[in-house]
């Protein structure tokens, strides 16, 4: 059946010195099915390639084996040459007689024998190669971004500016994420709102961005280029199309003492509210748990309680009976940018591996706050107008103790990882404090100072040398109440001195954790996550913003603790990946993927179980009348990566990996 051509390369002296190439070519020429076998000095050179092309035509070859260097070096070269001569490129293969032979052996006879063996493997294998053609998958050139923090905003804007449509899904009523809560930002100390707000507005106004705030992803189907996403638009109790953001409802809501999430509990909001003045979209949301009307309904009170907001709304936008609604979007790529939450030291932890800190009073000591609360105190638009005041009595604290690594680097009660950004924001906090309270003293307990970024260490040194923050190396043992101060008991391990401080306020740099609910989202997306729920990148170094599921990317603090520069860099990287993906209408892929034999497949789905990519799908075989005959496996061409695990697992040998079929491998082994 076969008309195989064999080409043995000398690689100058590289192969020729130890392998008798002519002898190999001659031996191969004697193999059944080989009709042409030659050796040549440099196969990859233009004349070398010409030799192959010419032979293909002259001898009407249906297989080409090049015995030369590693296929990693030149397989593409020779396949291209073969294709140029009209041969299906997948009928050309290489045998490695350089890296795996001439370069590692000295004895010429032995090396020549081995080279013959290696080429023979491939000659036998290629007899069973099939012509294959690249696979094309259509691409839906719209992207979904999940999470509207700075990472999601950046990714959405970059893609939209690149000319593609974006759907941005944010679970809260406004985009902005944590960055909107920050006062000033390291390492430059520019005002967070000032740099963020314009970007938020840009999102709202961008013609190619569809912003779905107060929404969540319900389910995801499909694969790269062809995802189908179901999105739940949560009931805001407001008809978005009617509301003009006048704020009358908010002003008139009598329920004004609800702790504000945005202010981290340091300020209050109404039941119908906009989380912060710069919110995008600037449309209120009605918090049904805290609304008098809904409480009344829950209690079964017949008469309508309150309803003021609806009364004052000139636009009649308020809809107390609004229900969640669902929409479905088709997208080709998904970016996950769901960000983080902070660890809290309280007793009730949702995870068994977390315990909270009894020695720090489980968060019950007044004036022990966390970093985000400090951000709100320091923020000019915050509950104190930017004055640093104690939550308990509104006094200005003259001595603040900052504790780093709370919940981080703590295998006993928190997480073993380093949260990466807290060293920096604590330094920032000491500076902000120093700027605002000149006679105040900031004391920091730290374990290491991790400030590995451009200008970062210099920033921390400035806090120490210019703002005179006193850094004590050590973890604090306990926080206890002492009158209206907090007794901080620690040790400075550098001097070995026990330290006891009566602080007016204590700020905890608590660990960064992934958002709640991230794992269920990850499962919907078939994206893996680590022990803590941070999403896994495909490769920490070489594919840092891709996930193992093709077409799904990660940006920002949902992947690991990240600061703003990192989050934005990742976001732009995902956008460029997505735009790259969208640059063609179709995706072209090598066809070395698995195929199911529908006749023999028994539908046991062992393959489905072992496939690392979830590429095996269920296919219903029906007769002409549409009656279900059986359910068998089918490989999604867009998803399969060609590892072959399914094939080795299939009990009935019904699934085969093209390029590495059983036939091909056995043929090679038989050539032993």
């Amino acid at each position, binding site marked *: 059946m076969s008309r195989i051509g064999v080409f043995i390369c000398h690689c100058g002296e590289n192969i020729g010195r130890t392998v008798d190439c002519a002898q190999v070519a001659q031996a191969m020429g004697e193999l059944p099915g080989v009709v042409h076998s030659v050796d040549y000095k440099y196969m990859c050179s233009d004349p070398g390639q010409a030799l192959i092309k010419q032979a293909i035509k002259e001898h009407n070859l249906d297989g080409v084996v090049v015995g030369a260097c590693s296929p990693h070096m030149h397989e593409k070269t020779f396949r291209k040459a073969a294709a140029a001569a009209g041969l299906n490129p997948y009928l050309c293969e290489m045998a*490695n007689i350089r890296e795996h032979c001439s370069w*590692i052996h000295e004895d010429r006879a032995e090396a020549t024998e081995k080279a013959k063996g290696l080429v023979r493997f491939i000659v036998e294998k290629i007899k069973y190669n099939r012509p294959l053609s690249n696979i094309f998958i259509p691409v839906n050139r719209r992207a979904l971004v999940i999470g509207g923090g700075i990472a999601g905003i950046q990714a959405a804007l970059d893609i939209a500016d690149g000319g593609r449509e974006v759907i941005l899904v944010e679970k809260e009523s406004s985009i902005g994420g944590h960055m909107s809560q920050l006062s000033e930002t390291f390492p430059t100390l520019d005002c967070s709102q000032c740099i963020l707000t314009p970007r938020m507005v840009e999102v709202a106004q961008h013609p190619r961005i569809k912003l779905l705030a107060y929404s969540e992803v319900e389910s995801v189907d499909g694969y790269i280029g062809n995802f189908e996403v179901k999105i739940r638009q949560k009931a805001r109790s407001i008809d978005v199309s009617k509301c003009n953001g006048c704020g009358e409802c908010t002003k008139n809501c009598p329920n004004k003492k609800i702790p504000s999430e945005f202010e981290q509990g340091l300020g209050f909001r109404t039941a119908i509210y906009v989380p912060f003045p710069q919110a995008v979209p600037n449309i209120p949301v009605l918090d049904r748990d805290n609304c008098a009307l809904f409480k009344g309904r829950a209690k079964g009170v017949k008469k309508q309680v309150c309803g003021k907001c609806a009364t004052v709304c000139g636009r009649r936008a308020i809809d107390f009976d609004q229900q969640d609604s669902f929409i479905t979007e088709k997208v080709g790529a998904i970016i996950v940018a769901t960000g983080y939450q902070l660890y809290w030291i309280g007793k009730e932890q949702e995870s068994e591996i977390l315990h909270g800190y009894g020695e720090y009073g489980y968060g019950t000591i007044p004036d022990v706050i966390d970093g985000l609360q400090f951000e709100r105190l320091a923020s000019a638009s915050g509950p104190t107008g930017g004055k640093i005041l104690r939550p308990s009595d509104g006094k200005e604290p003259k001595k603040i103790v900052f504790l780093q690594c709370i919940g981080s680097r703590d295998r006993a009660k928190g997480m073993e990882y380093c949260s990466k950004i807290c060293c920096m924001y604590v330094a920032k906090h000491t500076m902000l404090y120093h700027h605002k309270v000149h006679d105040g003293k900031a004391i920091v307990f730290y374990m290491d100072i991790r400030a590995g970024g451009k200008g970062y260490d210099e920033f921390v040194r400035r806090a120490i040398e210019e703002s005179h923050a006193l850094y004590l190396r050590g973890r604090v043992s306990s926080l206890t109440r002492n009158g209206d101060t907090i007794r901080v008991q620690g040790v400075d391990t550098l001097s070995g001195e026990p330290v006891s401080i009566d602080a007016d306020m204590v700020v905890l740099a608590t660990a960064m954790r992934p958002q709640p609910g991230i794992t269920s989202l990850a499962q919907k997306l078939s994206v893996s996550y680590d022990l803590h729920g941070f999403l896994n990148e495909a490769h920490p170094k070489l594919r840092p913003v891709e996930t193992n599921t093709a077409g799904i990317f990660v940006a920002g603090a949902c992947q690991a603790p990240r600061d703003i520069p990192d989050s934005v860099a990742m976001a732009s990287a995902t956008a460029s990946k997505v735009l790259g993906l969208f640059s063609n209408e179709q995706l072209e892929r090598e066809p070395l993927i698995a195929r199911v034999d529908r006749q023999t497949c028994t539908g046991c789905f062992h393959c489905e179980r072992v496939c690392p*990519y979830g590429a095996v799908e269920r296919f219903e075989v029906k007769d002409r009348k549409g009656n279900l005959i059986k359910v068998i496996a089918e490989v999604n061409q867009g998803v399969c990566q060609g*590892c072959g695990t399914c094939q*080795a*697992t299939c009990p009935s040998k019904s699934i085969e990996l093209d390029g590495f079929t059983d036939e091909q491998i056995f043929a090679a082994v038989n050539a032993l």
Partner: protein
Amino acid sequence: MSVPAKEKASSFEPNIVAFVCNWCTYTGADLAGTSRLNMAPNVRIIRLPCTGRIDTLFILKAFERGADGVIVSGCHPADCHYTAGNYHARRRFAVFRELMEFMGVDPQRITFSWVSASEGGKWAEVVNSTTEKVRELGPFVSYPRVAHAQVK
């Protein structure tokens, strides 16, 4: 049940087949080549995409076709190019070892190893030590038993 006879001819040169994954060990072997690490010439490599692709029958087939030893090598456990292929492979090999013994193949004739793309030196070591070990075990002679085992 291990191989009874160990006729060790001093001139015995074992035939060894290596099933390796394309991304880690094959590349590691390439590196051994570019680094010109001299090693025993007894090992011939068959390239597969992933150790997950390695079927136990390949190994039996190799013994049937006259191999005296087999090497199976892929990426380190956490580094699989396909994230989890080598994990499945490992699970399969545990079962496979027992099967081998049952088939009359001394499990010592099979080396399982992890060689990454940067471990050219380790590959040379695996090749040399396996060759040495198999040379000591002598030629694989219980071929008939394997042949009887209705391997394709």
